[in-house]
């Protein structure tokens, strides 16, 4: 198992991490993720190694005589030790999470306010001037600009998720929920509704098109619909 894990490492390099984050909140989550991955993989290798070692080392081999194993019933010192050490590790992980938290949650000032309406099975985006991007399920935004989404649903619970641009947020019919991102690279980002919403759930995709600021202005004056 350990050998397999070691051999699999190059293959895992691309698959053991989140998709390349392109927004400050996504980057902040990504670094929290990598820290936790490092700690948990280390624990798995150490404790799993201890388990596999014990399971193999102390196996009974046929044809040999064995004395009765020592009838040990426990050890208070060990119990205290393996209670305290995990607590310390978890305190450390929590502290690192809190350190990275402000960048996940705090929306930068002067963010562009965009309205999001979700319904079975499509997304409608509305700019501050009342216009909409052309094309279904598509949001067009300028690069390096904080975007604040104010979302509500017309029917059931949906969830806005464009992984490279940050965290999920559920979208409800009875209240407005918020999320934000600030794409730092021009390009298309794929996302998808992440809360099961009915038979068309799989088709409720999202594309965020990030344009340069000039292209965005051009887009708004020529392509955006009213």
């Amino acid at each position, binding site marked *: 198992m350990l050998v397999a894990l070691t051999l699999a490492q190059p293959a895992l390099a691309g698959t053991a991490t989140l998709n390349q984050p392109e927004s400050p909140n996504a980057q902040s989550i990504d670094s929290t993720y990598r820290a936790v991955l490092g700690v948990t993989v280390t624990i798995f290798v150490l404790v799993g190694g201890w388990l*596999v070692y014990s399971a193999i080392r102390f196996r009974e081999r046929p044809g040999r005589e064995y004395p009765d194993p020592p009838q040990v019933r426990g050890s208070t010192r060990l119990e205290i030790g393996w209670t305290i050490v995990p607590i310390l590790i978890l305190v450390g992980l929590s502290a690192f999470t809190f350190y990275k938290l402000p960048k996940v949650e705090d929306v930068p000032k002067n963010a562009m306010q965009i309205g999001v309406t979700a319904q079975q099975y499509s997304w409608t985006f509305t700019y501050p001037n009342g216009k909409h991007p052309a094309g279904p399920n598509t949001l067009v935004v300028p690069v390096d600009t904080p975007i604040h989404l104010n979302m509500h649903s017309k029917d059931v619970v949906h969830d806005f998720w464009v992984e490279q641009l940050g965290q999920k947020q559920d979208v409800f019919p009875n209240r407005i929920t918020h999320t934000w991102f600030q794409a730092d690279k021009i390009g298309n980002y794929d996302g998808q509704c992440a809360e099961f919403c009915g038979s068309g759930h799989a088709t409720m995709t999202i594309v965020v098109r990030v344009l340069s600021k000039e292209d965005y202005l051009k887009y708004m004056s020529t392509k955006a619909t009213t």
Partner: protein
Amino acid sequence: MATAATPAQTFPAPSGSTLRSWITTVDHKRIGLLYLLVTMFFFLTGGLMALVIRLQLETASGTVVSAETYDQIFTMHGTTMVFLFVVPVMAAFGNYMVPLQIGARDMAFPKLNAASFWLLLFGGTVMYSSFAFGGAPDAGWTGYPPLSVISPGHGIDFWIVGLHILSLSSILGAINFICTIHNMRAPGMRLTRMPLFTWCIDFYSIMIVAALPVLSGALTMLLLDRNYGTHFFTANGGNPVLYQHFFWFFGHPEVYVVALPGFGMISEILPVFSRKPIFGYKALVYSIAAIAFLGFLVWGHHMFAVGFSTPVDIWFMIASLAIAVPTGVKIFNWIGTLWMGRIRYEPPMLFAVGFILLFMIGGLSGVFLAIFSIDLQVTDSYFVVAHFHYVMGSIPVFAVMGGLHYWYPKMTGRMLNRSLGIWSFWVLFVGFNMTFFPMHAMGLSGMPRRISSYPQHPGWERMNEIATLGSFVISLGVLLIVYNCLTSLRNGRVAGDDPWQANTLEWYTSSPPPAHNFDSLPPIRSERPLADLRAEAAEAAG
């Protein structure tokens, strides 16, 4: 068995092996076997639905079933596995083993026990009859409103009524376990000497009694919303999030309802096949208690994406992480039991050691889901599907199958075929990891759960192919076990009272035990009375 002297104070159970005697039985062992038969049937049914899911997802635009059918299939897969297999299969073993482990004649309320079983079968039948009456439930095993309120047809109504019946079955069974364990222990069987499996069934029962009524309440409100115009969970005046709170207040403890008896089975198997006492008996009991308590404080970690305020997020995160501590204690004590032991690799032991390794993966991936900022990326993705199958799936497939291989000789009087058992383990171990390990990567790269088709994304089809192939390997392993269980009934080596040189009272009586369980009981001076007997005999022999 038929003519065993029945003490006067017990129910005159019909004897023999006629159909009537099984239908009217109030014997905890027969009821346990009936539970086992029915839950295994539902396991195979839920497994077949899993194969449909895997076939559909083998390619990006799967056409095995329609999206509507797919929704029904994954809803019934989850519901079946949780409510008709993993929870009641624990009642199967609990029923059979708890009275034996504590040296009792039967459960405290034998007729109520029979009622619990028949309610299970009835509830399952009601739920599955939805297929015949216009369509199965299709809102996921969590049944979130408003989707579950507006879902057309009567699938969800069948789901609600079926779950009500199943909850009643579980609650009655749990009350019965609590009364049995706390009132019917043999002389000398103090709480501090109780087998760990019985301890786990005790906490399993306490958690069921505390958690399931909350689900029943929520389901009743959902039923009213659907049919009688109330607005508990709808957008106009009600609150969909309220349902999620109710559901997960039940739903997270439910995870431990499933986990604890699995832990109990592992804690029985490890010391027997290591030829050592369990390491840290008291620490294990305390950690079971801690898990049972903390399990009620963490439900919000299933709901981080609804958008709590930060302090609420932090509370649920810290409470969830705290569960890692007693869980770690259990794992360390299990490995401590192996340490310096003389480990004999009979099939139950392979399943037990394999379970610890898989459960460790599930426990560690849980850390990512407890930390809410990471959770907001991976929740509702295939990462979660991977996580809960390493937890909720490794328990039935490895811990319970370990328990089955361990106790089958006691239940039937015959040994299972050893090499078939070893083969089943390795086939299941390989298949399980093939199926569920790639799902971590699918989720991390953005694949949401509960989708019947997916976009062309680099790697997704390949990973789904591996998972699909793995699911067929799992099926082979399950079929091997079923085949082994059926053929060994006739062909298995005769087991004798105590084929494993085990520690607990169930191995003191014959295999299978007589209707009255015990002709006599040994003195109980520790948590392993049979090991004490062997030590005394060895001493007497010089």
